[in-house]
């Protein structure tokens, strides 16, 4: 984990030096409270978009074109099922026994009847899928607000969720395979299939007035939704109106 963090930190440093030379328009902060690092974030976002346009998305598109829908869903199911240890541990850390039990039942069912997770039989019979990670646990433990942070290659994060992600490595089978066995194809496959799943959103991102802000808004709102297990506090609508 330390090695990986180090490498990410080095990558950030190199990138900021590279990008530092680029001319950038003066950015007035669009969300000073949650995104005070907007100037830096926009540069990384631009880099990520370039990488996505040149390599990531074309590969995902190719995969999407070759692979029929059914096996494509199967592969996604397989990877989602693998996240079970992370969800179980974090449900327990958050004191949510109901989620811990449900997730265990779901994992056992999908891993057996669902043939190693390729078939999501649990969803078919009405067992909900929960997604708990360390970032959410930190939020439940009190770190409610965290700054938005765009990472090279990895995309949207908050400082809290990035820290959570670094723990994640210890408990996720994919990271385990990479750490202990130098197996990289599970991670690569996971990322490509995930990107393929997100392809339908592309027209909305392309048509957005400000794609950076759109991705940030969607990420932060959805994150809030996950932290509060589907029932986040309502936005302060009156405050939006007061500016009127």
């Amino acid at each position, binding site marked *: 984990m330390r090695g990986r963090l180090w490498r990410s930190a080095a990558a950030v440093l190199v990138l900021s030096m590279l990008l530092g030379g680029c001319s950038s328009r003066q950015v007035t902060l*669009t969300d000073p409270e949650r995104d005070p690092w907007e100037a830096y974030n926009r540069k990384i976002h631009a880099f990520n978009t370039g990488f996505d346009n040149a390599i990531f998305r074309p590969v995902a598109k190719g995969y999407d074109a070759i692979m029929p829908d059914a096996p494509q869903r199967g592969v996604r199911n397989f990877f989602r099922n693998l996240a079970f240890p992370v969800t179980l541990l974090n449900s327990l850390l958050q004191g949510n026994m109901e989620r811990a039990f449900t997730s265990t039942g779901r994992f056992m069912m999908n891993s057996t009847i669902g043939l190693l997770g390729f078939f999501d039989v649990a969803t078919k019979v009405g067992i909900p899928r929960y997604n708990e990670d360390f970032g959410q646990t930190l939020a439940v433990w009190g770190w409610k607000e965290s700054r938005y942070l765009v990472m090279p290659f990895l995309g949207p994060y908050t400082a809290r969720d990035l820290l959570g992600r670094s723990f994640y490595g210890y408990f996720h089978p994919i990271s385990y395979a990479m750490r202990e066995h130098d197996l990289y194809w599970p991670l690569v496959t996971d990322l490509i299939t995930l990107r393929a799943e997100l392809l339908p959103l592309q*027209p909305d991102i392309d*048509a957005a007035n400000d794609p950076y802000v*759109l991705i940030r*808004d969607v990420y932060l*709102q959805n994150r809030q939704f996950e932290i509060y297990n*589907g*029932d986040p506090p309502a936005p302060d*609508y009156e405050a*939006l109106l007061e500016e009127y």
Partner: protein
Amino acid sequence: MKTIRIASVISFILLTAVAWAHAADERDPVTIVQDTNSHIFQTLENRREEFAADPEQLRAVVREDLLPLIDLRYSARLILGKAGRGVSPEQLEAFSEAMSSVLINRYADGLLQFRSDEQVEVLPMKGKNNEKLTRVRTRIRLENGGFAPVDYAFRMTEEGWKAFDVTVEGISYVITFRNQIAPRVETEGIDKVTADITAGNVRIDD
């Protein structure tokens, strides 16, 4: 004799109309969502083939059902924020009209994929809802057995409860659209933005 019959028919119509209008005023948000859903899905079920051939008809039906339930002006004001300074009532009207058309059309086009209203579950009210603002939570069953959470924000107006925001998986239409559109209104002016929305040059994200 004939006039009496006509008079009684007219008074009957008036009475039911008044009773209906009155009932509409007093319905609570959960009932509004339930009633609207079942009416739309019932109509969809009855006229499915007609709608599949001509989606414009479904759009019209949905518009008729939904428009009286939405506080368009409030939504528009939330979206514009301070960009709405100096906007005339007519401009606000046109803007909210353009926005709602795009949203309603997208919703109507998506409806055809659904089979019956059994796929939409309206959850009972919970949590702290004050008397002016509340949230109705619904779950849309998906084909694979999972569900998508769709919530509606309602506020109390002089004409009863009206919806003004939709939230899909925690992503609010008002918040998200506001951050896309308000900066454009500030630089390009509201008339240009309204025209662009109507022309389909601005996508509204769900």
